[in-house]
């Protein structure tokens, strides 16, 4: 290969090499929004107020407070949507349960985070409600 040909090939490759170089850091895990949310949260200990980053997917919606992003299943409606998304079959039975049972399931989920147990309980409560209706 003649030197000038080699140089031409290198020149042709240069934009790709530069592009790779530029793309390098962006290929890393983007945790900046997480760190921003974490920092805003911890600052509340010193400032006394929580100033969340806008539209952060790491800031949870808390009942009675305005915060952006997140879906913590803090509200019963969010929890119902969560069940519908995660287990459409169980949701059919869940949606027919009286609100008190739905609230109980919601509270249990907040405490344990165990979706499998929640699904079992949905069927258990469904049977319970059915039995009560028969009497």
């Amino acid at each position, binding site marked *: 290969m003649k030197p000038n040909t080699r140089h031409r090939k290198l020149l042709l490759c240069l934009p790709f090499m530069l592009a790779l170089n530029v793309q390098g850091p962006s*290929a*890393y*895990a*983007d*945790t900046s929004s*997480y*760190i921003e*949310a*974490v*920092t*805003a*949260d*911890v600052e*509340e*200990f*010193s400032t006394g107020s*929580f100033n*969340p980053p806008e539209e952060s*997917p*790491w*800031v*949870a*919606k*808390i*009942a009675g*407070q305005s*915060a952006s992003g*997140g*879906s*913590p*299943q*803090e509200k019963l409606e969010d929890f119902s949507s969560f069940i519908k998304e995660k287990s459409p079959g169980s949701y059919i039975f869940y949606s027919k349960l009286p609100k008190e049972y739905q609230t109980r399931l919601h509270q*249990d*989920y*907040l*405490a*344990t*985070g*165990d979706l*499998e*147990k929640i699904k079992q309980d949905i069927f258990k409560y469904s049977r319970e409600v059915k039995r009560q209706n028969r009497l």
Partner: protein
Amino acid sequence: MKYHLTRIMSNLGSRAMLASLCGIFSWSAIAGVDRTLPLPPGSIAPSADEVAQQVYFANHFYSFKNFSIARRGSTMSVLINQSASNKESTVSLERHINNDYESEPGEAIRSRDLAIFHSGNMRGTGMLVTEYTEDDKSKDYMVWTPELRKIRRFAQPQQDEAWGGSAFTFGDVTLRKPDDETHELIGKKIFHTCLGAIEDLEGKHFRFVGELPNRSCRHAGKEVYGLKSTTKFDDWWYDYRISYVDTSSFADYRTLYYKDSKLIKVVDRDWGLVNSDKKGDPRALFWKYWYGYDLRTGQESWAIVPQKVVEYNTDRSSSYWTEKTLRKIKR
């Protein structure tokens, strides 16, 4: 033969990793904290030292006689490490902890912790960690090496050593004691954010655990103490750390590490209540996952414990936590 020896040496060389993985559910003796530590009365606000002791109690599973993250079929716990360049490594394991020794008078053992590894180059390796009632006595680490079919003994690792090549250290997961730091309560507030998770992997199908969890936002809205803990060690890798501690269960959801006033690492822990009827000790909790992010290196680590492999207070005999079990591990 040469190949086998190389593998053995490699496994022995990574004993720190083994030991660290074992550390996730092992617990250390410290003066004043054992299984008898009572829950502080609700009417009196606990001091910073008391909160630190309660956190230690919860993290070392003192509420349970024994606690296992077993194997159910192909489902078991997994540790995923992702480097800044998205290089991924995975280790799966089962763990069995026995905390039921001190009922015997004069018993020298406080707890035993058995780990069996099921994937990676540590497959078939077992580890038995013994902790003694004497506070000053260090733990015994016995490793079963499948290639040699022999048990090797190792010294207790250092607190700042990386745990399983992850963003967690031995100190984070097991060895750090409340006495190693001075504690200060910096306030009480509502926890607002979701716990961390490796974003690329959230909700995805993954070997050993089925489906990986999504980020946990269940704890948002809970009341937490801010506990500032300053290390007593000189030239340590962090100056102080701030932990979010649940005011009723003493679960530490998040810890932020600072060096020269800069945030250098975050460790999040998703806790689950083993008993959903909410009766009994509120500290009877287990880890659903740990997430760690090291801002210095960009490394992320995620240790996931599927709930269906969690067992506790079983009737398993203490003889299970002996060298005999190590020797029985299939090659």
